[in-house]
């Protein structure tokens, strides 16, 4: 009961916020660019729509920038924005004087971030389909290719990228709870993401928590030196460690507003 009240209150806080718009705009960005590309280049669109493996190509092209760039950066930005909402509005003291346990507050905040990430993935999948559909009404001679990406692939890809980005979400949550200055989690997150990209050719690249999403995408391109199993386990361990650490640091804060 306490948790659902907290979750509901946390969700209400995201209304009209920049982070909630970021989820919608971020998820529509790549499908929109792909749509424009097809609308402005109808000839290449016609040949693309005739291909037997249209959905595989379209799906993979859509995920390419999202997995390597938009997902990690979007998670860094939106996690920092949502978590820093209390610092920015000077509302920690109000929240911590409400009759809610610290555990409920912590888990509700984390849940909202996860829900927003899932919302992003859901919308992104939807926008991929819609962006492929629109040209069939606009460009003559184009028909919607039959079917869609196999459901198993949809689930697997979404789950893989979701789990690959969870360490980023967890660590950003941790530092955003600790630091009042918004620039610290933001700069820290971007710095760690760039460092992970630099270290992507390292043989123990699966140990870089901010590079898991890129590694997942690379594993689909059959690039050698990438072991998806290690990415899963590494991401899971990092996620758990960061969340537990964030919880303990949050609980033991001397000043709560």
């Amino acid at each position, binding site marked *: 009961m306490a948790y659902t*009240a907290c979750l509901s209150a946390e969700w209400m806080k995201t209304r009209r916020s*920049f982070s909630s718009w970021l989820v919608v705009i971020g998820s529509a960005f790549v499908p929109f660019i792909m749509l424009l590309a097809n609308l402005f280049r109808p000839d290449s669109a016609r040949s693309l729509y005739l291909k037997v493996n249209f959905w595989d190509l379209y799906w993979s092209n859509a995920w390419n920038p999202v997995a390597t760039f938009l997902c990690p950066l979007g998670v860094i930005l939106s996690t920092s924005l949502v978590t820093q909402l209390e610092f920015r509005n000077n509302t920690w*003291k109000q929240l*911590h004087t409400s009759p809610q346990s610290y555990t409920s507050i912590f888990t509700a905040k984390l849940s909202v971030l996860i829900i927003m990430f899932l919302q992003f993935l859901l919308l992104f999948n939807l926008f991929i389909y819609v962006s492929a559909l629109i040209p069939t009404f606009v460009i003559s001679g184009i028909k919607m290719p039959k079917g869609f990406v196999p459901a198993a692939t949809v689930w697997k890809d979404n789950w893989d990228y979701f789990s690959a980005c969870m360490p980023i979400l967890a660590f950003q949550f941790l530092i955003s709870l600790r630091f009042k200055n918004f620039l610290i989690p933001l700069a820290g997150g971007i710095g760690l993401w760039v460092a992970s990209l630099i270290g992507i050719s390292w043989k123990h690249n699966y140990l870089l928590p901010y590079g898991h999403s890129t590694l997942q995408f690379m594993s689909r391109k059959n690039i050698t030196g990438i072991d998806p199993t290690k990415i899963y386990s590494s991401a899971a361990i990092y996620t758990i460690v960061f969340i537990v650490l964030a919880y303990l640091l949050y609980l033991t804060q001397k000043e709560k507003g």
Partner: protein
Amino acid sequence: MNCIETKNLSHYYSHDQAVIQQIDLAVPKGAIYGFLGPNGAGKTTTIRLLLGLLKLQKGTISIFGEDVQSNRIKILSRIGSLIETPSLYGHLPAQENLAIHARLFGIKKDRIKEVLDLTGLANTGKKTAGKFSLGMKQRLSLAIALYHNPELLILDEPTNGLDPNGIIEIRELLMKLNAEKKTTILISSHILTEIEKMVSHVGIIHQGTLKFQGSLQELQSKRHSGNTLSLITSDSVAAKRIAEQCSLSATIIDNKLQFTTPEHATTALLVKKLVDQNIDVYRIEEQHQNLENIFMNLIN
């Protein structure tokens, strides 16, 4: 019975730097308790300790007769608070700020209009709290503090940013709540005159220690004992000698004879003696010591 009671409450920001020391606060149930002190005296630290926003280092706090450490959630459900600067979600309008609060307190959203009316914010519509003036933000913070009909209101400088009219309105609102709903109110301020019209009890804190605690009457009795009588005569030096014959310890300031207001009989005797000695008495006036002076004397 006391609504808030602290024993030996102390807090240190560093090992040897005490912000407050051995504060024994006693806020009676149903009182409006003015917690006074200059900036940096330790008011906000004390209030943050009461609300659990600072970790308790030394001493005990009991609210509603229960220990705050072990009954935090239960106690907080009966308290409304406003601590220093407004605490609002700037991207949301007043109604949604209140709705979040209602959700956190597990109560219905049916009082939103009522508290907005009460605090004069009924016409803010969809205007977001970030666009409010400081006074409006303070009113909304107060609306949030009042929303769940708390038995205890803890308000840290609630009139910050309000214009004189706003201050009077808030004062009347708090007095009404106290009278009608028996809400206990702890209100901090660094300006005594601002709250002396509404408080029933006063606590004066300075440099982390409680200098005075008691009812307003007790504080006012200090005022009466501190009044001075001032005489303008044709010969101040001779008048001073005669005053001393009447056992009055007088001083001459700006050619005026001044001494602590004596009994009526002593004043009459002095005037009679002055007239008998052919000293003209032009004016006798009593200077009342105001509460602000007492406050200043206590903290200096």
